[in-house]
């Protein structure tokens, strides 16, 4: 198994984008039990694992939505949990978060939802016309017909469209890092492929570092640089997609072959 702290050589310029250092978190049971992981700039990291193994919690600790019991997360070397509220807000503006169910604001139109990704200062200084241009540009990036959807409410959109609006909202502020929580869950294969291509395109065009929490291995492995597998709050495997496919680890094999491992059969 590859060392989780080793970054990809071709993307390691300027230090790591995200570092997880000895993260512990317990709810009713230990969800994170000493996670150490480093994500390089421009890298696409897929985080996989069975349900309840702490993937989403790991993602939420990245920007301080969940505070760990112990350990730290660093973005560009800056601690998330030792930051003042102002610094934390600045750190969060470097990171875009795509939520599992998009988490669009129900009472706002697509235009208003996407423009929320800009800071108050940007909204004030840019004026309505430039904000509209930015919203259109972001919706174009996610392959949506901006003029047709901008006035719609989230309830008028399909699941795939909502996800893409969620991505547009996350990228309008030009974040350096994007966190995806189950970006294709609930989508049909065509829309899932659209979202995966989009993630690759955003890295290619904007150089965005991406961390994808997913169960969809088939769709994610082709675009990922590395795969990390979580099991009971610990990193079970880290390596390239090829190393992941070739791994002899029983849980990795079970995940790849959609089999129930002996460890889980006892549950």
């Amino acid at each position: 198994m590859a060392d989780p702290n080793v970054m990809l050589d071709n993307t390691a310029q300027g230090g790591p984008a995200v570092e997880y250092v000895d993260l512990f978190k317990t709810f009713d049971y230990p969800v994170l039990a000493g996670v150490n992981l480093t994500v390089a700039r421009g890298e696409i990291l897929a985080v996989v694992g069975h349900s309840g193994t702490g993937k989403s919690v790991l993602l939420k600790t990245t920007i301080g939505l969940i505070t760990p019991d112990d350990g730290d997360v660093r973005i560009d070397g800056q601690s998330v949990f030792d930051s003042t509220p102002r610094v934390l807000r600045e750190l969060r503006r470097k990171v875009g978060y795509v939520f599992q169910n998009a988490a669009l604001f129900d009472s706002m139109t697509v235009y208003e939802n996407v423009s929320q990704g800009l800071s108050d200062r940007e909204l004030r200084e840019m004026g309505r016309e430039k904000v509209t241009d930015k919203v259109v540009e972001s919706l174009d990036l996610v392959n949506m017909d901006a003029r047709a959807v901008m006035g719609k409410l989230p309830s008028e959109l399909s699941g795939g469209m909502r996800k893409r609006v969620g991505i547009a909202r996350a990228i309008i502020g030009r974040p350096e890092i994007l966190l995806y929580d189950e970006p294709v869950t609930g989508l049909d294969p065509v829309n899932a492929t659209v979202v995966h291509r989009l993630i690759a395109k955003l890295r290619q065009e904007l150089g965005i570092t991406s961390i994808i929490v997913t169960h969809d291995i088939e769709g994610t492995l082709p675009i990922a640089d590395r795969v990390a597998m979580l099991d009971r709050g610990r990193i079970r495997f880290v390596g390239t997609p090829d190393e992941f496919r070739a791994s002899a680890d029983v849980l990795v094999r079970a995940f790849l072959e959609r089999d129930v491992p002996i460890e889980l059969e006892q549950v």
Partner: protein
Amino acid sequence: MASTQSVVDEGGGEPGPVGRWLARVGRGSETFSRHAYGVALIAWRTVVYLFTGRIALRDVVTQVYWMGAQSMGIVLVTATLSGIVTSQQGGYQFSGSVPLYVLGSVVSQSVILELGPVLTAVVLIGRVGARITAELGTMQVSEQIDALYSLGRDPVRTLVSPRIIAGLISVPLLVAFADCIGMLSGMVAAQATLGLGNQAFLYGARLFWHNWDFLYSLTKGLVFGGVIPLVAAHMGLSTRGGAEGVGRSTTSAVVAMTLAVLVVDAMFPPLMLQ
């Protein structure tokens, strides 16, 4: 000593009845302290945002319209009925023993000092408070609150503070309308059912009238206007779980808001009427 131990500790580490009761008291105190801290934190942040001018005026105006103008109908209906009932019950009690014009004083003082502000608050708990909790609770469980944090926005500034400020503006105004309509309906009811003329009713009302009483009523409205959205928002943001969690927190919020309003109401006479 042995008997005390048997009540507190049944042996083998199992708590006795007193031990269980103490544990319940401890858990209750912990829950109360946690909620009190949460409410105080929201209140403090709202004060900071208010004085640093970081609350969008447009959001406050929207909430004033929704809390104030849209609640006017139900508040006035409640005030009208409370005035009528007070007038009729007073007339029934006074018949034959007390001059009927005193009814003017009873109705006006009851409505202004107590019924106007408290009934308005109770109506708003159901109409405004429950909706705030359900709305913020739904946003919490559907990760919309997390989304705001992820975008570098504080939900207290964008969602909660405008509602609290709108409550502080609109509830005293609603209480003022409720006071006027309650007295007016009491006067009309007294004339229609007891034959007490308007002049006699107003004479009675003026007998024990203090201008301070109206300010007292508006002050109650101001405090209730802060308490209701504050507690409602805190309970909404504390929601955990799915739809069931939203239902649970909305119910808890209605109970908490009602208790808070009644406790605060009970503190007014010793503080302001001595």
